[in-house]
């Protein structure tokens, strides 16, 4: 049974001469315990795919299902709740509030989502696991790129979501850090039973993926890991 499933998704922007079809009949599944990579070059439509999977955009046609429930039926408020409760986003930029310390990034979530977040012991363990437990009183501007990325991952995991959607999580990281992030995402998928979907053009993450999709010019195909 798929945790998240995209069926025959098409996305068109503009009309007439400016009409651009960004996604063509995209089919995709990801289950808990999997790290699924969506590989593609810039402009291939992978970010549009990610925003549709996360309920940030609606497809022109097709259906997005979470645990076999269609997102199409959800109101704007339900979609906000869906993003808050079921999805954790790890974005490549602006992913932390600049005027909140690392600790306050979690406090903000507590104020909006009163129940269901991981408790303080679990958070401490998570931060230790991500090796950022000594950064709790620092602002994002005081952290390195790698530390910011790991805080963003912790922030995404804080609501204990079923699915993590990551947009280029290894952008601007060196190979050593890429391996660390890849290993971490793999462990989160298998040990914490999350469905993790990563859109990237970074081939260095292939070794950590459970499955791989290739997207080119809006057309997505499931690829063998060996290709």
């Amino acid at each position, binding site marked *: 049974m798929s945790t998240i499933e995209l069926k025959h998704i098409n996305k068109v922007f503009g009309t007439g001469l400016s009409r651009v079809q960004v996604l063509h009949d995209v089919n995709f599944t990801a289950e808990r315990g999997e790290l699924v990579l969506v590989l593609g070059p810039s402009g291939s439509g992978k970010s549009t795919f990610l925003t549709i999977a996360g309920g940030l955009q609606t497809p022109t046609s097709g259906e997005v299902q979470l645990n076999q429930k269609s997102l199409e039926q959800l109101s704007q408020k339900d979609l*906000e709740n869906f993003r808050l409760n079921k999805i954790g986003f790890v*974005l*490549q*930029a602006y992913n932390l509030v600049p*005027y*909140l310390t690392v600790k306050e990034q979690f406090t*903000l979530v507590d104020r909006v989502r009163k129940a269901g977040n991981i408790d303080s012991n679990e958070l401490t363990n998570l931060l230790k696991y991500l090796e950022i437990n000594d950064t709790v009183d620092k602002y994002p501007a005081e952290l390195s790129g790698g530390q910011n990325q790991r805080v963003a991952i912790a922030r995404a995991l804080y609501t204990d979501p079923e699915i993590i959607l990551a*947009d280029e999580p290894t952008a601007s990281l060196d190979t050593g850090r890429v391996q660390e992030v890849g290993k971490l995402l793999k462990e989160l998928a298998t040990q914490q039973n999350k469905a993790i979907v990563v859109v990237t053009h970074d081939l260095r993450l292939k070794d950590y993926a459970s499955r791989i999709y290739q997207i080119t010019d809006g057309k997505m195909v499931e690829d063998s890991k060996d290709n």
Partner: protein
Amino acid sequence: MFLALKEIKHEKLRYGLIIAMIVLVSYLIFVLTSLALGLSNQNTQAITSWNANSILLNKDSNTNLSQSLITQEQDADLKLTKNDAYLAQASVVTKSSGHEQIAANYLGLQKKQFVNQNLKLSSGHKAENDHQVVADEKFQHSGYKLGDKIKLNSLSGSYKIVGFTKGAKFNIAPVLYGTLVGWQSIRGLGSNFKASAVVSKDSHVKSSNSNLKNYSIKQFIDKLPGYSAQNSTFTFMIAFLMIISLIVIAVFLYILTIQKLPNYAVLRAQGIPAKVLVKNTIFQSFILVIGGIIIASILTILTALLIPTSVPMSFNLPLLSLVAFGLVLTSILGAIIPVRTILKVDPVQVIGG
């Protein structure tokens, strides 16, 4: 609220500058309003202190006290009660060695009538003969003391200051309260004329003389020379200042909100409800403007304490509260204008292409 306070705490310089701008704008409005009111009050202070509701003047005086005269013959047609009092005005220039000349209004009163009876003195006693006067505190501030003798215009004879009273300005000039006979000799009118006018606590003075006419105190004040024109000028000046200032504040708060949209897009993507962000924006504007108004109020009070007495400032709490309320309201409006943008902020913009 959490986000609003954390952002102010973290971005001290930016928010400090915005509060400083609100402080300066509010201070300017408060000070100008108080100065305008102070000047306006200098026209009417004495009139207000009489607590009268109407005034009887010569009908050909153009509702002007200095142009009005009531003859003894006309006085015979009046039926005065204990609520009525004669008022006799003469414009004078006071001279005294060692003191500056002061342009003043001599107001002759009858001893046993209510205006003289209700006169509140800060020191000394009321005039007991025709060569004694009670002077406005302006004389005290100019160095005059009880017992000082002053000359009026070029008249022979002198007048002794026997008392001081606060808040006795009429048509900007300070008042010297004297007697009706004193007025007759200053004006050189002899005994044919009784007074300039009769003020009353009632709605009118009973008179059967067709040459005399009753006016309400409001009508009388509005006709004071230059009073309405001066007030209209100040009212328009302050109104334009307020409108422009409020627009400037609203625009600043609008820009402030627009600058936050990238952060709001991230929060929306993470599922933070739009209403949390809207409440945060409005609360932040409220905090900024309230902070600015409190500081501006303190500065205005300090200014009033330090400003020379020759520059009158008057505080009208309801009016200043209204001005402050206008500032708060417009600032919140400035924050509310981009609410639609916040509600429509596209979380997609934070996810790269």
